[in-house]
């Protein structure tokens, strides 16, 4: 068996184990929650007979282990169950909330890359200058800011006081019926259907939360870019190329940048995953009907079906990206070989 197949098999096995562990922890943690999911269905004033009926229907009278196994069986057949706090199938809910978050996160990562990478390169090339210090400080500031607080302040300043951007939500109600979303990514939908007015409105909604999330990932990306770049610029071949008379920017473009590309992609992938986390609080502040808010509402309602599905998906994304990072780390760092 070629070694790469073994590698892949091993990787796949480890993913399965990780996900199982993830599910088990979440499941049992969820059943420990001091929140009774039945109440969100029957209402707080319901009597015992009603309560018992739903309790039984949800299978909560079975043993924990049986519940877990049943849940696993449903999962394997692609059935996430019903989200109690929305009354929908979890899969239906996820199909609705995920695009909103993906759109927000993509907008943010675009800013993160667009600003972060050039900033990181500049800081590395002009190492030790004022530019480097400023870039570093701006980056650290992004690291240190509570994004939900930036969101609140942004709303006060740019929406309430200046009226430059649109308020909470993804789109003005006036446009809700004006067009039928296809992909759920409203910017894309509006552009594809040539609804430029809608596009403008959606843009005005996304620009603030997107920029604030983007700032956080920009901080991370620029910092990593800088350190990768510095490592490259210290290499002998770069010095040699410089000595041979190649211009500074040519060296950066032709050699250094090309060499850090793999690392950079990993970092960006990780930054993207972290955006999903940042979205939890940002979405709360901006009333963004996305995945993060879905997860928190589900958690606060004790709705384990919804929470488990969300955690599984987030877990999948994280595991995949961590695996990638780990692989590259092994490949690139000779010390760990």
């Amino acid at each position, binding site marked *: 068996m070629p070694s790469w197949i073994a590698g892949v098999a091993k990787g796949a096995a480890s993913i399965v184990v990780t996900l199982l562990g993830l599910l088990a922890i979440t499941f049992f943690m969820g059943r420990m929650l001091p929140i009774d999911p039945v109440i969100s269905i029957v209402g707080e004033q319901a009597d015992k007979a009603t309560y018992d009926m739903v309790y039984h229907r949800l299978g909560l009278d079975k043993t924990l282990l049986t519940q877990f196994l049943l849940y696993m069986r449903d999962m394997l057949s692609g059935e996430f169950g019903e989200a109690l706090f929305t009354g929908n199938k979890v899969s239906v809910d996820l199909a609705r909330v995920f695009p909103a978050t993906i759109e927000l996160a993509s907008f943010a990562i675009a800013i993160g890359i667009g600003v972060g990478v050039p900033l990181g390169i500049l800081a590395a090339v002009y190492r030790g200058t004022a530019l480097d210090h400023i870039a570093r400080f701006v980056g650290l500031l992004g690291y240190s800011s509570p994004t939900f*607080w930036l969101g609140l302040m942004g709303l006060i300043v740019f929406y309430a006081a200046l009226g430059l951007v649109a308020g909470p939500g993804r789109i003005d109600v006036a446009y809700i019926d004006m067009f039928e979303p296809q992909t759920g990514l409203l910017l894309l939908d509006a552009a594809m259907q040539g609804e430029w007015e809608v596009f403008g409105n959606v843009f005005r909604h996304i620009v603030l939360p997107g920029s604030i999330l983007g700032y956080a990932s920009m901080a991370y990306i620029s910092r990593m870019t800088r350190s990768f770049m*510095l490592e490259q610029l210290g290499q002998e071949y770069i010095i040699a190329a410089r000595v041979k008379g190649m211009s500074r920017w040519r060296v950066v473009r032709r050699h250094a940048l090309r060499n850090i590309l793999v690392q950079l992609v990993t970092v960006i992938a990780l930054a993207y995953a972290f955006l*999903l986390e940042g979205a939890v609080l940002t979405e709360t502040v901006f009333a963004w009907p996305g995945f993060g808010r879905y997860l928190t509402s589900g958690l606060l309602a004790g709705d384990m079906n919804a929470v488990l599905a969300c955690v599984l998906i987030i877990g999948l994304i994280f595991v995949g990206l961590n695996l990638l990072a780990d692989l590259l780390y092994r490949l690139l760092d000779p010390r760990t070989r």
Partner: protein
Amino acid sequence: MKTWLTAEITTSAFHARAQRFYYGWLRLRANRLAFAGFCILVGLCVVAILAPLLAPEGSNEQSLALRLRPPSREHWFGTDELGRDIFARIVWGARITIRISCLVAVIAAPIGLAVGTAAGYFGGWVDTVLMRLNDIFLSFPGLILALGFVAALGPGIGNAVIAIALTAWPPIARLARAETLTIRASDYIAAVRIQGAGPLRIILRHIVPMCVPSVVVRITLNMAGIILTAAGLGFLGLGAQPPTPEWGAMLSTGRQNMLGAWWLAAVPGLAILLTSLAFNLFGDGLRDVLDPRSE
């Protein structure tokens, strides 16, 4: 004193250590941003210690008649929805922030070190099991894991600390493992082993001390994240319980009135920002000082 600290030949182990510390201090002083971070942190500690002097009335002196007053001479940072002085609450809140971050560090660092060094040193199935566990925890975004744990354990500072510590150890373990892998291969470990030292002794006496500097840096850098997570939990109502003047919780209630009374959200938010920024600046500088490999 200065000559003693800079003497070329050290006379004792203590002397050598003191000297190393002194040179580290000088390097830190030279890094302006890091030093600024350091000063903010010291200032925060001073404020926390002097809280009874700075705000003798305590953090929970209510007055319905004085609700939502903007910043003024009497109330530097204004008053909140129950007429409490926000300055006093920020001052007392500093104690809570410090307590949370220290507790998390004290819990998470040993766990991370133990798991990481054990996995790195023993390798094989120990490594596989521990790292799988590590992966499981890493595959949750920190805030979501903490959210789940606090929701299950019940809200409150104690539980928040446990929950955050549970999310904070995996990166430390990963780092410690990586360090251990490089140290394990070195000659002097082999030498110690030939002398007959057991694994526990090797880990505790020879590997852990080598890992400590990078772990300290890592924890300091993570401290900002810890503070933000704690604030996030408070913001979602799952952290400190009222009337505890935890900054995140203050921000959360402040949000309800953010339009009419901007200071309610702005002040605690700034406090959180300043503290986590200070930790980041300081941690950054500390890395330069302690870890000669970087830069």
